[in-house]
């Protein structure tokens, strides 16, 4: 597999949200607006990239039977670093996302890539995989958050598109997340089979 393909697979072909259906909890939870999706996606991308790098470096030294706890400790460490750094230098973003940052630890996507990819591949491939998957995840979250924000609040990235009097509130609520996700998965499947 070429590195370009390795990178681009995360967007459509193996998109973590629409195709692999990994990390559903943060996906459904944070995407009530596009900006939240973007912030969460980028934070996850950073964690994914760093954990993939570290896991691919230490993979030989970790005995098989304890690899999962070791990976989780590595992931949790990076999540906490992101949390502290964001709190210190981006307090306004932390205010809206703070709650969801610790959720990255339990995001199956991060552990999934560590286990399925980084523990079997070399450093460069793992880095590209982490970056591609992370950006694919971000892309999916922004798309989902964008649709929900337009339908449910009449805005996109906080820019008003139409009056709040005509919005369908359902879309910013939890059921709206499932509905929009379902339609987007159908759409992606259609694109993929073409």
């Amino acid at each position, binding site marked *: 597999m070429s590195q370009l393909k390795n990178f681009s697979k995360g967007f459509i072909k193996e998109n973590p949200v629409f195709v692999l259906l990994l990390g559903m909890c943060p996906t459904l939870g944070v995407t*009530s607006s596009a900006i939240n999706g973007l912030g969460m996606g980028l934070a996850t991308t950073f964690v994914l990239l760093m954990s993939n790098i570290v896991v691919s470096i230490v993979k030989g030294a970790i005995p098989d039977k304890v690899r999962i706890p070791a990976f989780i*400790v590595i992931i949790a460490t990076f999540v906490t*670093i992101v949390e502290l*750094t964001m709190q*210190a230098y981006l*307090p306004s973003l932390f205010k809206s996302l703070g709650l969801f940052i610790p959720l990255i630890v339990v995001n199956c996507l991060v552990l999934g890539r560590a286990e399925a990819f980084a523990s079997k591949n070399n450093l460069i491939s793992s880095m590209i995989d982490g970056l591609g998957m992370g950006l694919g995840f971000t892309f999916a979250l922004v798309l989902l958050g964008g649709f929900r924000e337009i339908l449910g609040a009449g805005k996109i990235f906080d820019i008003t598109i139409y009056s709040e009097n005509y919005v369908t*509130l359902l879309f*910013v609520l939890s059921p709206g997340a499932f509905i929009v996700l379902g339609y987007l998965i159908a759409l992606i499947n259609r694109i993929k089979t073409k």
Partner: protein
Amino acid sequence: MAKKESTFINMVVMLFLVTGIAAAALGFVYDFTKGPIAEAKLKAQQEAITNVLPQFDALGESFKTLVEEGGDSLEFFPAYKNGELVGTAIKTYTKNGFSGFISIMAGIDSEGNFSGYSVLEHKETPGLGSKMDTWFSDQEKPGQYVIGKNPVSNNFTVTKDGGDIDAITASTITSRAFLEALVLAYNSHKENKEAIPATAGN
């Protein structure tokens, strides 16, 4: 590098190493970010005080008061202009939000009316309850505007409960909690009026 065997000693040593390095890294980052985090929090608090009060040139010494019903204390920040008290910012809270704890900075001017508020901390639903940040300060909608009012001149409960304030659409629980926090600040302010120095004394 050959894969390490999963012998007991290997597992113990490796897990110990991984957790040890993680702990050291976290300790370092914590130490490094401790200062900026405290600074950011203080700055956010200062900004909130400035936002909720009429113009002032000096802040008096802040103090804390206990709440009658028990629970955490409220923090008072008296503000002065040319030595005269112009208002007090009160850090108030409620635990009855849709998702629990909400912390609000409420400003009360010298006439005892709310001069502004700023939501410091909350976990309400984004796009719904989180709108309280702007909802109650929308000047074009008098039904939901709380500034310039006080719980004596107006009934500070939502219209659904027979009050005078329009609740946030689909977020009645958040609105109730929000108003509860404001009333708590107001009552506490009334009780502690004597404790607030009327002039900026040194």
